[in-house]
């Protein structure tokens, strides 16, 4: 029944999974048929022993006993056999054949065993054809019943088993859920299907049946992907979270698989730090930040390391997150931050199936910052700030008045840059997939199209993706297959300018028309405003480049498996992954207009050029994995062994050429230019070789033990520091399997398991050549020619080697009340040693970048809890899954008493990573009493404020933390535990009633306070030509005000109020309702008329609600960057 383990609870419960379910059903039908044949061949009825209560009975009574106690029907003719004839038998217990011999001894009746029948007839008439006739006629007795098996939603269940109780007579439902079966008149039938509660139905007096099967909660029957294999979840001894992605991606606008993980599993933190189309990989961290380096987990797609964006989310079947050492150690040197295994959909035996899903999504940003858009107000605020800094007013009163009275929005604009820059985008996504298989060949194929214009102009992405997963059994002992997938994506050229827009959008003022209705772009209308910001019109910047990026990706995996003898297999694979990114661009010279004077004040100019650039990345990967599985000692001991080797290499290269002076601005290739050219190019590579193995032992399915070992060698380290070894082991005890638990397991306890693991993992997050001491170019010129210069711009550390992370994990998994309530709790302790760190060096070392060194140790301690409840009442199904993670990190070894300070990020032994270190603010000096404190301090020490300037009314008064009467850098202190949230949580409720389904995903983090300062968005400073935040200026102090929430406005070069202090410490906790969706599946009767298997329509809101105290742009985005989009989605899912 291994097929059972493929079914995850979601699949069964949830509508969207019919596609996969159907494939499974088809498989099941085939399996069923197959097992029937097995039974038939296995007939040994003659030898079957039956027991009788008395030795004396009629022939009829004997026949009944035989039928009752065996699977056989006895067929005879009433004319030939007298059923009332009494017989006396010798034994109360004997073989069927012995009884028959006795009962008919001395008569002319003989018997034959034929299939499921015992045929009694006159010896004289016995031959093959008469026996067959007898059986046929016997079969015509009784009645034929028909019926349909559906689930609670009225969906047909394909391949459900219908068995006449007490016989092996049975059938399976067809693709519409229909069945027909010949049974005895008073027979009972048993209807069963994997994942559903079995039913027994009496047929007496009825021939037509509508059977509704209820789903069964069987969470613990899942299998999950683990490194180089799959395992039943109940048998796992490590900490692995399985995420059923196919559910989510079917009806959420997920363009990047990374987003699907948000809130879905405990211990997994997903931050969409950049949401720019085509560059929207979310950053993922598992169980906190165990390193001072890149803390991204290793992503393995179908066995090979890959970028998470290279897979079309809709092709993904499941994701496993390997969190502890025992499960991740098989990936050794790259697994320290956890491993994410992505499994794509594979074909299954069964009828061909075609699915379509598509959606339209209306995207817009969540506007959290409100700029001052009234230009007259803006000018007054600017003047106020300049005057506070003893600088002349920037704007004349007449100009302010002119604007206040000006009505025409083109002549006197009051532009809100956010409204003017961001638009509502309509993105569409279509995925068409086909799958199926015969006995020997299975395939899954898909084609996807995504058009995501984004929320800014000229920055969209169009993506076509395709996949073919195919596998065939050439011989029983040999199968081969290939996974081929790839995409083609077209990114608009303005994509390049997006970062630039976020940099320069603040360098505009509300007095600018971004774009005239007639298409012309604005510079500044006010001649008194900063001419430099004329060029910063975001729309003009987005559109001043023509061209784009074309990315082509091809990933191939060819594999073969040999099974030379039972239990043993060897799989070899070769993988090639290729990405090419071609960029072409040329400038578009757009004039900037002053619409007040109707003149061009910022001419679009520059030298015309064409740039052609090409980046290529290739990966080669090959592996051989041998597996052996068997049971010993009466099947009590299960053993499986896996051993393998792999090697991989990564190459990247690029070249770029720019040539000047286009013959005509309409042309766009290098050959259309006549001027000088410049070119550049480089290449980089690394390689790795690995050996790995695993032993699993299980005793009576109760005691489970696993041992893993991996050895890795990487080109990133010098020869003698190259090899790293990563062992791990784990054990689990399935307490529910113990006999002494029977009283509990019979009642409310469904499952209970404890597990523990320990092991070591590595992290090789250093540059490809950091161990090598190198000279790179730093040119000068002599004699009017370029003099090639060489300098050690990067220092090297020949002693570099892996970071080692040791993870201990204790976990408990449980299920209660027929697994309606399931959950698990993990406690982990993760210690990372030899952390590769940029040990800070004094500035006197120069500007060369520092090599990483294996220096620090960090621990992460915490727990993860996940709980799920699913229930139903009638047609009403509901459930909720929740997870909660707590993690606290601490630097346990650094440089003794020494610390490193990079900005406000403070690293020192005993503190969390990047504790926030800065001044504390005592108050905003608002009153004369407040100012008296300052004067008092000055009276005591005239240089009390020498470091940052003497504060005046409206300024921040920093705390004198060390009490020396001076406000200076010595007063800095730890104000927060750093940028890693302590709490993560996710909650996903669902409800379904008949065809209607509703679900939501809520996700959040808590316990994170981070310093954020942006001159134009959250400081009360003004700068000529830059935007102002309304909240800041409205909260500013001015003479007479005593309830100011911000200091007075000052010109930005006066840094008195912008010294790093806890005034700019932001609480970045948030709760996001990532998704709410409502779907409706049309009833089967309606759908069938449309020649469909399934038709579901849904609406969903993605990322619509965010609750956060954060005053910035988006709590997931650091500073100003492409924020996450709110999306309103309508979509359909169809199956043919």
């Amino acid at each position, binding site marked *: 029944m291994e097929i059972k383990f493929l079914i995850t609870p979601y699949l069964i419960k949830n509508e969207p999974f019919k596609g996969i379910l159907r494939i499974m059903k088809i498989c099941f039908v085939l399996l069923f048929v197959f097992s029937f044949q097995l039974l038939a061949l296995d007939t040994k009825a003659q030898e079957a022993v039956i027991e009788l209560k008395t030795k004396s009975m009629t022939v009829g009574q004997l026949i009944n006993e035989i039928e009752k106690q065996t699977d056989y029907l006895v067929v005879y003719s009433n004319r030939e056999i007298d059923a009332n004839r009494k017989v006396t038998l010798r034994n109360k217990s004997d073989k069927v054949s012995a009884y028959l011999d006795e009962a008919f001894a001395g008569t002319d009746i003989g018997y034959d065993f034929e299939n499921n029948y015992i045929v009694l007839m006159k010896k004289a008439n016995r031959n093959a054809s008469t026996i067959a006739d007898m059986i046929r006629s016997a079969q015509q007795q009784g009645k034929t019943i028909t019926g349909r098996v559906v689930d609670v939603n009225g969906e047909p269940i394909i391949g459900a088993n219908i068995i006449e109780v007490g016989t092996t007579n049975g059938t399976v439902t067809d693709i519409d859920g229909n069945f027909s079966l010949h049974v005895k008149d008073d027979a009972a039938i048993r209807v069963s299907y994997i994942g559903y509660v079995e039913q027994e139905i009496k047929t007496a007096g009825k021939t037509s049946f509508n059977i509704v099967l209820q789903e069964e909660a069987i969470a613990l029957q899942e299998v999950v992907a683990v490194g180089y294999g799959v395992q039943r979840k109940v048998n796992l001894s490590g900490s692995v979270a399985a995420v059923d992605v196919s559910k989510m991606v079917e009806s959420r606008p997920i363009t990047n698989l990374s987003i699907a993980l948000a809130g879905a599993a405990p211990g997994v933190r997903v931050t969409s730090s950049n949401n720019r189309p085509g560059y929207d990989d979310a950053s993922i961290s598992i169980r906190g930040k165990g390193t001072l380096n890149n803390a991204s987990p290793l992503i393995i797609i179908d066995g090979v390391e890959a970028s998470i964006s290279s897979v079309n989310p809709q092709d993904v079947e499941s994701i496993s997150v390997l969190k502890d050492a025992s499960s991740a150690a098989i990936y050794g040197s790259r697994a320290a931050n956890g491993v994410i295994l992505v499994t794509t959909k594979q074909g299954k035996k069964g009828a061909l199936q075609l699915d379509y899903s598509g959606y339209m999504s209306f995207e817009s940003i969540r506007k959290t910052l409100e700029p001052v858009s009234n230009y007259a107000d803006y000018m007054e605020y600017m003047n106020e700030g300049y005057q506070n800094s*003893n600088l002349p007013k920037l704007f004349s009163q007449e100009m302010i008045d002119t604007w206040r009275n000006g009505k025409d929005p083109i002549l006197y604009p009051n532009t809100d840059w956010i409204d003017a820059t961001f638009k509502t985008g309509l993105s569409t996504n279509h995925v068409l997939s086909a799958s199926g298989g015969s006995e020997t060949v299975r395939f899954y194929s898909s084609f996807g199209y995504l058009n995501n214009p984004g929320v800014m102009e000229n920055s969209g992405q169009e993506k076509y993706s395709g996949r073919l997963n195919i596998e065939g059994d050439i011989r029983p002992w040999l199968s081969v297959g290939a996974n081929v997938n790839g995409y083609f994506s077209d990114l608009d050229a303005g994509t390049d300018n997006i970062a630039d827009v976020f940099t320069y959008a603040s360098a505009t003022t509300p007095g600018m028309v971004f774009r005239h209705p007639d298409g012309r772009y604005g510079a500044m209308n006010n001649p008194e405003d900063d001419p430099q910001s004329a060029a910063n019109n975001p729309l003009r910047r987005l559109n001043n480049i023509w061209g784009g990026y074309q990315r082509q990706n091809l990933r191939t995996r060819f594999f073969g498996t040999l099974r030379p003898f039972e239990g043993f297999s060897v799989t070899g694979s070769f993988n090639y992954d290729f990405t090419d990114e071609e960029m072409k661009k040329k400038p578009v010279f757009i004039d900037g207009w002053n619409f007040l004077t109707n003149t061009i004040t910022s001419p679009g100019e520059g030298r015309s050029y064409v740039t052609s650039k090409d980046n290529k990345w290739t990966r080669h990967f090959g592996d051989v994995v041998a597996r052996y599985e068997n049971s010993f000692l009466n099947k009590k001991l299960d053993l499986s062994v896996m051993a393998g080797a792999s090697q991989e290499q990564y190459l990247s290269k690029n070249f770029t050429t720019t040539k000047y002076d286009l013959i005509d601005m309409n042309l766009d290739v290098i050959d259309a230019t006549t001027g000088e050219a410049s070119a550049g190019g480089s290449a980089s590579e690394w390689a790795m070789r690995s050996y790995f193995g695993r032993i699993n032992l299980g005793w009576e399915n109760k005691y489970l033990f696993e041992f893993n070992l991996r050895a890795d060698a990487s080109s990133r380290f010098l020869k003698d520091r190259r090899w790293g070894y990563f062992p791990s082991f784990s054990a689990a005890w399935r307490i529910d399997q113990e006999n002494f638990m029977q009283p509990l397991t019979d009642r409310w306890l469904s499952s209970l398991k404890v597990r523990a693991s320990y092991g070591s993992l590595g992290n090789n997050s250093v540059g490809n050549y950091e161990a090598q001491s190198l000279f*790179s170019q730093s040119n000068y010129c*002599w004699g009017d020619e370029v003099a090639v210069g060489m300098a050690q711009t990067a220092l090297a550390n020949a002693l570099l080697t892996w970071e080692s992370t040791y993870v201990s994990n204790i976990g408990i998994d449980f299920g209660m009340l027929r697994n309606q309530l399931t959950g698990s709790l993990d406690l982990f302790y993760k210690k990372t040693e030899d952390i590769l760190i940029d040990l800070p060096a004094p500035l006197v070392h120069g500007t060369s970048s520092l090599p990483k060194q294996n220096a620090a140790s960090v621990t992460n301690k915490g727990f993860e809890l996940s709980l799920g409840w699913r229930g139903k009442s009638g047609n009403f199904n509901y459930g909720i899954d929740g997870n909660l993670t707590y993690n606290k990190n601490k630097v346990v070894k650094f440089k003794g008493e020494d610390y490193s300070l990079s900005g406000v990020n403070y690293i020192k032994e005993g503190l969390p990573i990047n504790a926030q270190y800065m001044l504390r603010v005592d108050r905003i000096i608002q009153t004369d009493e407040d100012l008296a404190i300052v004067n008092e301090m000055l009276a005591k020490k005239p240089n009390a404020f*020498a470091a940052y300037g003497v504060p005046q009314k409206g300024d921040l008064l920093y705390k004198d933390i060390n009490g020396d009467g001076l406000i200076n850098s010595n007063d800095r202190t730890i104000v927060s535990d750093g940028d890693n949230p302590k709490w993560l949580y996710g909650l996903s409720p669902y409800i379904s009633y008949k065809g209607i389904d509703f679900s939501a995903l809520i996700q959040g983090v808590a316990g994170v306070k981070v310093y954020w300062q942006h001159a134009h968005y959250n400081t009360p400073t003004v700068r000529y030509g830059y935007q102002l935040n309304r909240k800041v200026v409205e909260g500013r102090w001015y003479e007479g005000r005593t309830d100011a929430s911000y200091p007075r406005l000052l010109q930005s070069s006066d840094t008195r109020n912008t010294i790093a202090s806890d005034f700019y410490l932001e609480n970045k906790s948030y709760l996001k309702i990532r998704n709410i969706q409502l779907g409706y599946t049309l009833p089967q009767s309606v759908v069938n008329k449309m020649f469909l298997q399934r038709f579901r329509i849904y609406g969903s809101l993605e990322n619509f609600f965010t609750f956060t105290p954060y005053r910035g742009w988006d709590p997931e985005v650091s500073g100003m960057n492409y924020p996450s989009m709110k999306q309103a989605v309508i979509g359909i899912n169809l199956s043919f």
Partner: protein
Amino acid sequence: MFMKKQCKYYTAILFFLIILLSGCYDLDRFPHDKLSSGTFWKTREHADQAMAGVYSMLRNDNVFGIVFGLDCLSDIGTGYDAPGYVDMARGTYTATTGQVVNKWRSLYEGIARANLVIQNIGNVSENEMSQEIKNQYVAEAKFLRALFYFQLLDFYGAVPLYDETVVVAEEFNKMMEPRSTPDQVRSFILSDLDAAIASLPQEGDYAAAYYGRATKGAAQALKGKVLLFNKQYGEASKLFEDVISSKKYALYPSYEDLFKPGGDASNEMIFAIQNIGGVGKNYGMPMTWYMGTRSSFGSCWDNVTAATDFVDSYEYKDGRPFNWEDWIPGFTTDDAIKDATFRATLTSDLTKVAKYPDAKDLLLEMYDQRDPRMQQSLILPYTWYKGWVSNAPKDCEYVIASGVNETNGFVRVNNGWEVYLWRKFVAEYNMNGAITDRAHTPINFPLIRYADVLLMLAECYNEMERQDDAVSLINEVRARVDMPGINSGPSWLEASTKEEVFERIKHERAVELAIEGHRFSDLKRWGLLETLNGKAEKGFTGKAYYTRVVRSRDYLWPIPQQEIDMNENLLPQNPGWE
């Protein structure tokens, strides 16, 4: 049968293994665009490359890359943003200010690169480089090292010393030396310069392809300057005299052309940063970007402009001090008159001047009567500038009116200030194609030139009570631009006392060396920096743009806070910055 079957399987397995593991990927990988230190330092070419690496630091923004902007910290310039050193000018900088941190760091980078050459030159084989040549290279590295340390001494005072015994690649996080005293730093600089003087070739002795490398004369002049800064006038004068008597150097006949291609490679340039431009060879400095206007090549920013008072200090051609009242009565006291003097109005379509100010012709006449260096160094109102607009040359007039735009042939100041603009070092048209990037102006930038040496020697002589000798040197500089000599007759040219001659030197250095980045250091060594405190920087139309804040602590910048955070041995912080 069984055996045969098994064989088939194992053959297949073997086949798999062979295919997969036969081609083992090489685990020794090297970068494709960099040289490994193991293979470097073999040839003279390598030595040249490492040396060019040291020189390239000169062009770094925090070393000498925007040195012209430092004039904004003196009486010569005004400015905004980083190139105008705005934080320093307004007294709002701290020990964490970027320019404070980066100047320190970049200068030490230059020192580290120089040390690297000195450490490794010995590894080059004798066939490639003779010992003599190696000595010359060491001397050259020491010259550059001295130049960097001299900057550190000037800006930060006592600094820690790291010489070639420190291998940065190995000791980078152990570089915790305390500060040496200023005298120790100075004697370190002087001994480096002595080595340089001993082994460097004379001007003209380098092959043409090496033009621009440090010479003996450069080392002598720099040593003289170091001594002069320490008021060792007698010793300094000897070195300047050596430079002069070498007869390798002379004043270039045209002051104007000295700062254009041609003059920038003349023998007036004792040591200049070599700048080139062009696609694929943009190795220049951003003079055009930060001093050019919106009308300049690449549309530029005017971060560094001229102080109005400074421009008013240009003498008349006959040496008399300039006075506005000679031309526009009431000008000096009435801002309305100032404004009227310059204000024009444009036609409603902004393409033409509707009305020039009445004083326009008067102004032009006045300019012609002034020290020629004024018009050669500055774009003055109603003079013309050879601009580059919409990818074509465009002559632009500096008209003071609302709505001027380069597209209509006007000079437009980026930040809208009504101030005098630099012409010196700023690209005209597109320099016949030589400039392709506003950040890389292909004009060599002098760090020490002959006129500077003459004036420094004059200063020495004046301090040594040799006023006549001093005056004759000043006059030599003035003579190039046909300015009458000091003490050449008229009363207004008389100067006899040390103080009077000093005033002449002070004036002459300002107008001769304007925007070459010397003035801030000059004011510091003369103890005159604080005279700028409270000075309102106004435009010529009378508008005030900012007020200078200068305190006694500004003679030295603070040691960067992050450096002190790292290395407590650097305490105490500079005075006034604690």
